């Protein structure tokens, strides 16, 4: 298992976020280095998803900036996104495409095209053997989540993973698999940010935690 080359650190500088009338958080600072895990905690509506979307560059912070390797991600754009894997609230799956097709499209868009064999391997790893060629529409909620997370098994070269509630709708076995995937990725030198309600057991060189209610 080789280390990922050229990892950078993700730095949040004085982030403020106001959505509508509500101030979600203010003056948030953190630095996430290679191999570190950041868990964002907080009740529903405390701004966890907003923070993740800001870290991805999907949402512009009301004030402050996010830096990747010292450069503002709004400047880097595709250069940053090429190194990022984001699994959001939505599974980003097309109902009319099969699990394999969905992953094929997702990987190609991310700039790392994968062969059908690799995709099949990733799906099997998440316990979806036999579902490769079923349209996503017939899969259960938990199975769709697994398809979305199978992208992780296909993105071992990405130095930054940002996962929004990755364990939602998963059964115990699948949670175990995904935790293993994250731990492996951390040991490879990637940085991972996630939100979760579960007390996840993931071994990491350093585990940071941000509690959004506290800020």
């Amino acid at each position, binding site marked *: 298992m080789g280390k990922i080359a050229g990892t950078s650190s993700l730095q949040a500088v004085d982030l403020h976020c106001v959505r509508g009338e509500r101030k979600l958080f203010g003056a948030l600072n953190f630095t996430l280095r290679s191999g570190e895990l950041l868990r964002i905690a907080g009740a529903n509506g405390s701004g966890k998803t907003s923070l993740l979307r800001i870290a991805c560059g*999907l949402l512009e912070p009301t004030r402050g900036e996010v830096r990747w390797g010292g450069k503002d991600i709004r400047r880097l754009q595709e250069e940053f*996104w090429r190194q990022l894997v984001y699994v959001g609230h939505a599974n980003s799956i*097309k109902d009319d*495409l099969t699990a394999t097709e969905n992953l094929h499209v997702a990987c190609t*868009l*991310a700039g790392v095209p994968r062969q059908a064999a690799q995709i099949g391997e990733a799906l099997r790893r998440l316990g979806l053997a036999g579902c490769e060629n079923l349209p996503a529409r017939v899969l259960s909620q938990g199975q769709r989540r697994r398809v979305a997370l199978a992208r992780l098994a296909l993105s071992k070269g990405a130095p930054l993973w940002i996962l929004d509630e990755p364990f939602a709708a998963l059964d115990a076995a699948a949670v175990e698999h995904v935790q293993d995937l994250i731990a492996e990725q951390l040991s490879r030198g990637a940085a991972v940010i996630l939100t979760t309600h579960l007390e996840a057991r993931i071994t990491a060189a350093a585990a940071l935690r941000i509690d959004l209610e506290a800020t």
Partner: protein
Amino acid sequence: MLAALRCVIYRDLLLAVRRSSDVLTVLLFFVIVVSLFPLGVGPDPALLRTIAPGVIWVAALLASMLALNRMFASDHADGTLEQMLLGATPLGMTVAAKILAHWVISGLPLVLISPVLALQFDFPREFLWTLTLSLAFGTPVLSLIGAIGAALTLGLRGAGALLSLLVLPLYVPVLIIGAGAADAAVSGLGGQAQLLLLGALLVFAGAFAPWAAAVALRISTE
């Protein structure tokens, strides 16, 4: 990057094939609207011949607008749009690929069926190609301009009606020049000037509209 663009086009076409009823709805809408005009203005062949290009063009405008809603909405709903925003390809290129696919799905069928509809109006057969060509050049412009509107109204309540308010005034030049092409051909002036103008509009819109739509998408998905 080309692989990603090919993949986007292939994906959208594949989705359209698996949901072919959507494609057919737009086409049927076009046919029905055009067929309503003789019922409204009377079956006088001389009148129908004169209004044919205008009617077909207006109907094509409305039909392609009807299809616009779907350009980004379903991708927005299931989250795949977010993945495109975070893709390794510049968003403007991805959007251009999506617009191309959208045109093949919703614009090209209109172009192909238009000669048949024109014959219903007893439109002179020797000028059919001018009408068809004008639609072939014009409908991609409609998809390009429409993409900006579709991106701006993404996820808003009453997006459909709002979209038509935003986009229809911007369609005016395409309508005038497009319908003018067949008119000019019939009146003996030849439609080449209009077709060239439509081509120029297509190049202009093709160069700028995808980027404007990309900016609009980023704004709408915040």
